[in-house]
């Protein structure tokens, strides 16, 4: 059982990483949201698996929260947002996509190497998950750097949160419940605030291109 579940978690981790890469390369915002939703689903599945394996009750709750928040609520909010705001494409990126992907691969290697000694320490079923979690955090970070529109940037941010959550649940079998609740609450509130922001930015700048937001600087 645990053997298979370990393999399952590893598989889910691989899918998560793949999704992160896909998000890094995706230009359409709508697809980006879908990918994000898929990532949430993977996260939910992996959490549930871990819960199953370890029998920790609160991880089911975590899985549920993930499901509600990241698979249903946030994608729904994002969908509404882009419909209302009418943004579909994120045309320009800081580097072109192939370069970004190359950097991404380097990052993954780096993360794996960093996590190698940690993974060896881990006695859990999910040896390599720390490396993958770190890699997906880094990839999301890279995505935030390269995107020039507000919405993809926020999706990057949320994806980073996903990576973290994955690290928390899979690598360590879940943080204490209070903390997870707190984190979830923060993510939710943050999203709401971001939503408010989008409208305000739109109102002020007539666009969600964050390159308008470059007025405050030293010259």
């Amino acid at each position: 059982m645990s053997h298979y579940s370990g393999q399952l978690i590893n598989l889910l981790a691989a899918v998560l990483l793949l999704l992160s890469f896909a998000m890094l390369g995706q230009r359409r915002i709508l697809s980006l949201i879908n990918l994000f939703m898929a990532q949430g689903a993977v996260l939910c599945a992996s959490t549930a698996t871990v819960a199953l394996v370890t029998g920790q009750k609160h991880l089911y709750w975590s899985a549920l929260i993930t499901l509600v928040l990241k698979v249903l609520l946030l994608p729904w909010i994002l969908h509404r947002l882009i419909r209302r705001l009418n943004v579909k494409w994120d045309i320009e990126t800081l580097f072109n996509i192939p370069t970004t992907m190359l950097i991404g691969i380097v990052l993954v290697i780096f993360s794996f190497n960093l996590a190698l000694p940690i993974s060896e320490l881990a006695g859990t079923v999910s040896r390599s998950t720390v490396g993958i979690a770190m890699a997906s955090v880094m990839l999301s970070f890279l995505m935030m750097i390269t995107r020039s529109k507000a919405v993809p940037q926020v999706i990057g941010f949320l994806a980073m949160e996903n990576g973290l959550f994955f690290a928390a649940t899979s690598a360590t079998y879940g943080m204490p419940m209070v903390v997870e609740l707190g984190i979830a609450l923060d993510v939710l509130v943050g999203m709401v605030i971001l939503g408010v922001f989008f409208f305000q930015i739109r109102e002020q700048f007539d666009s969600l291109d964050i390159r308008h937001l470059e007025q405050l600087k030293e010259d």
Partner: protein
Amino acid sequence: MEFFLVLGFPLLGGMVLALTGHTRRAAEYNAFFSLCTLIAASVLTLHIVNHGPQMFFEEQFLVDPLNVFLVALTALVGFTTSLFSRPYMRIEHDRGHLSVGRLRLYHSMFQMFMFTMMLALTTNNMGILWVAMEAATLTTVLLVSLYRTTASLEAAWKYFILCGVGIAQALFGTILLYFAAEKLLGHEGGALLWSHLNAVKGSLEPTVMSLAFVFLLVGYGTKVGLVPLHNWLPDAHAEGPTPVSAVLSGLLLNVALYAVVRCKVLADGALHSNLAGLLMMGFGLVSVVVAAFFLSRQKDIKRMFAYSSIEHMGIVTFAFGMGGPVASFGGLLHMTVHSLTKSAIFFAVGHATQKSGTQLMEHIRGLIKLSPTVGWGLMLGTLAILGMPPFGVFASEFLILTTAMKQQPWATPFLLIALGVAFAAIFGKVQPMVFGESSLPRLPHKPAMLPVFLHLALVLLLGLWIPPYLAGWYQQAARFIG
């Protein structure tokens, strides 16, 4: 009991003001709740002084020498800021910069912010610490964008994204920390409780801890405003309402640094090397030097003092990085006096900018003529922050610099240059603002200068005489930090 009041009053205040924040007396309510918090914090402080460190609520909360004075300080600055914001926000409202709804948001979020600060300070759980820090970002983001101008939106957006990303790194660090502790402390029983971690820090896995500390340092360091993670800080300080700048500089940075220090204690214990100290010294020194050079090109007064905050946080980080009883003592003292002084400066700056109707320094002239109290307040505050004795900032800089000369002499030329450049920049700009001629008429509103002079008096006191029990805390805490 008083402990829960410390957390309860601001939370209650936040809720009450969310409903009543638009009324005419909202500012008074705000001050009232802050006062209650202050009283509760004082009582708590006395309690701790008499009974020593205490845990509350199944060890979820910890009040020890390291944070008790920060609790008191936070409550104090919160209270004085609420006093200051009363006339300040009223004028902003009168001038039509803020609607009633925004005032409600402001008052409510102010109290919520205080709550998050108190929570972050008192919690024993590293996870909750993270949650509180993130919540602090969220509350202040709304405060920074309060004016809804393009600039304030931009500042808030940057603040949100940069701090959000930063704090995400801190979460990863926390997870790694948990990962390391879990094996020792078991899955259920408080592997994230700092007091437990501290007890077993010697046997935490060094490899994991080194990675965890890097993530935590980068994460919370972003909130401290360490260069090169500082970019959100000047924008947020300059564009938010002045009371918010005051609490950002005076409280948020301190609390973030407090988080870093908590982590450093663990990392030091685990790593058996000075790696954490070296990293902090490096960040501190870079921050001091870069911020000092930033200062000289500033045009906006709040932005300038924001950079000055970066500089001072750099000094404190450097001090904690050096470690040792004297340097840590100096660092703690510096946190205290910087927070008091910087908020006093922001109060004075707030009045000054309201009087002149601009934040551009070249248009602010002759404050001493416009309003002697504001002028002298700004002048003395500036001198204090620049490390002029007999103010307390000098006392801490004295300890830090002399210890640096002893322990890390290579760093002193940088500090010397940075302090010189910072002095030249800030003083060169403040002097003509305070002195000289002004043709502006006096404002009808009486400035709330009590907070300014109260803070400055405290800073002066700390420069000449540190009360023995306060000194005792500092020393205990310094021993603690190592």
